[in-house]
C-alpha cells in the first residue's frame, strides 16, 4: 500500500485511539464497581439506580451517547461558567475528554453487570471467615472480595475492553483525530479512501490482537494461585 506521506497520521491516530480506550476503561472500571455496589445494596432505591444505569446505556446507541455527553457536558459547563459564575468566556470541552466521558459511562454500565456476577460468585463462607478473623468490612473487601472479583471478572472485562476499543471510532464524529478520522482525512485529500480505510481497519485488527494478548497475560496472572490449588 502507498500511504503518500499519510502513514504517520494513521500511526498517531492509532496512538490516540489507544489512549482514549485506556482512559475510558479507567473511568469505566470505577463506575462499574460503584454500579455493582449499588446493585448489590440492601437499599431498594440504590438497586433501582444501579439497574437503571445499566438499562439506560444498554438501550441507547453508542453514537448518541457520545453526542449527548459531549454537547451536554459543554452546555452544562457553559451554563455554570457563563450564567452562574458570571464569567464571560468561551467554554469548550475537548473531544478527547467528551469521548472518555461517554465511552467510560458505557463501559461502566456493562461492567457493573460483570462485577455484580463476579461478587455473587464468591462463596459466602469466605466473607464469614474474614469476619471471624476480625477483619473490618473494608479490609474484607480489599483483601478477600476484590482480588477474587478481579479473577472472575477479567474475561468479561476483557471482552468489554475490545468493544470499547472499537467504539472509540465513534469519537471521530465529534472531531477527535483518532484512527478513524485520520483515515478519513487522508482518504479525502488523496481521493483514495479505500487504501486508508482498509489500512485503518487492519490497524484496529492489530490493536485488537495486541489487546487480546495482554488480556490473556493478565488472566494468567490473576488466576496463578487458583490454577495451582485446583491442580490444573
Amino acid at each position, binding site marked *: 500500500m502507498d500511504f503518500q506521506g499519510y502513514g504517520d497520521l494513521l500511526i498517531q491516530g492509532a496512538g490516540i485511539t489507544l489512549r482514549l480506550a485506556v482512559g475510558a476503561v479507567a473511568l469505566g472500571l470505577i463506575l462499574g464497581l460503584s454500579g455493582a455496589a449499588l446493585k448489590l445494596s440492601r437499599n431498594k432505591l440504590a438497586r433501582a439506580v444501579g439497574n437503571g444505569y445499566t438499562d*439506560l446505556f*444498554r*438501550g*441507547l*446507541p*453508542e*453514537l*448518541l451517547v457520545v*453526542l*449527548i455527553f459531549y*454537547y*451536554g457536558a459543554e*452546555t452544562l459547563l457553559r451554563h455554570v461558567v457563563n450564567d452562574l459564575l458570571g464569567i464571560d468566556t468561551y467554554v469548550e470541552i475537548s473531544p478527547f475528554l467528551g469521548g472518555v466521558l461517554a465511552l467510560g459511562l458505557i463501559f461502566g454500565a456493562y461492567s457493573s453487570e460483570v462485577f455484580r456476577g463476579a461478587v455473587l460468585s464468591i462463596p459466602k463462607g469466605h466473607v464469614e471467615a474474614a469476619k471471624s478473623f476480625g477483619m473490618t468490612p473494608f479490609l474484607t473487601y480489599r483483601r478477600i472480595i476484590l482480588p477474587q472479583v478481579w479473577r472472575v471478572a477479567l474475561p468479561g472485562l476483557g471482552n468489554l475492553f475490545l468493544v470499547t476499543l*472499537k*467504539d*472509540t*471510532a*465513534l469519537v*471521530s*464524529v465529534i472531531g477527535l483525530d483518532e484512527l*478513524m478520522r485520520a*483515515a*478519513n482525512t487522508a*482518504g479525502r485529500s488523496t*481521493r*483514495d*479512501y*479505500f487504501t486508508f*480505510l*482498509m489500512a*485503518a*481497519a487492519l490497524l*484496529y*485488527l492489530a490493536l*485488537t*490482537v495486541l489487546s487480546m494478548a495482554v488480556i490473556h497475560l493478565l488472566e494468567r496472572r490473576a488466576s496463578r494461585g487458583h490454577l495451582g490449588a485446583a491442580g490444573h
Partner: protein
Amino acid sequence: MNVDLIPGFLFKMLTEGLPTTMALVALSVSIGFFLAVPTALLRVSHNPAVRVLPYAYIFFFRGTPLLIQIALVYYGLSTLEWIRGSEFLWPILREPFWCAIIALSLNTGAYSGEILRGAIQAIPRGEVEAARAHGMHGWLIVRRILLPRAFQIGLPAYGNEIILMVKGSALTSTITLLDITGVARNLYARYYTPMEAFVTAGVIYLVLVFLLTRLLRWVEGRLSRHLLGPPETELAQDRAS
C-alpha cells in the same frame, strides 16, 4: 433545554427517521441471518481448509469498528475504478441505503454466525447420535436436529445481537442516511439545539429497545414451552397416583 421544540422534533423523527431505522434493521438482520447459517456450518467443519474462510470473515468483521465497515463500503468501494465502471455494482453501491444494508448485514452475519456456532456446539452429542440411529444423515440431521436446536439455544444471545443492530443502525447517519439519528443530527444542525435533538432521539431508541426486549422474551418463552413440563399441581397428582 427548550421544551417547546421537542414535540416537533419527535414528530419528524417518528415519521421520517423511524421507518428508515426499521427498514435498515429488518433487512440487515434478515440478510445477516442467511449469511450466518452457512458461516456457522462451515465453522464447525472438521476440515481446517473449510474452516479458514468463515474464520477470516468473522475475524475481520468482529475485530474492526462497524463505523469503518460502513465507511469502507460507501466511501472506500466508490474510489475503486472497476466498481465505478461496473454496470451492475455501481447503481447499488452509489446509494447510501444499500451500502448501509451491505455493511450492517455483513457485520451482523459475522456476529450471528459465531453465536450460531456456539449454539451448534452446545447441542448434546446424544441428540445427533439419536438422529443417526434413526437412519438420518447429513443434510437431514442439519435441517431437522442441528439448526432448530441451535436456534433455540442461541436465541437469547441472538436477541442481544438484534438489539445491537438497532443501536448500530444509528451509525448509518454518518453516510448521510436519515434514520432516527440522522434526522436528529439534521435538526441539531438547523436549530443548533443539540440536547433537544439528541435526547429526543435517545428516548425513541430506549422505547424501541424496551419493546424489542419484551417481544424477544415472549418468543423465547414460546420456543421453550415444551421444556417447562406440566403445571405443578398436575405433577403432584401424577406422582400420588
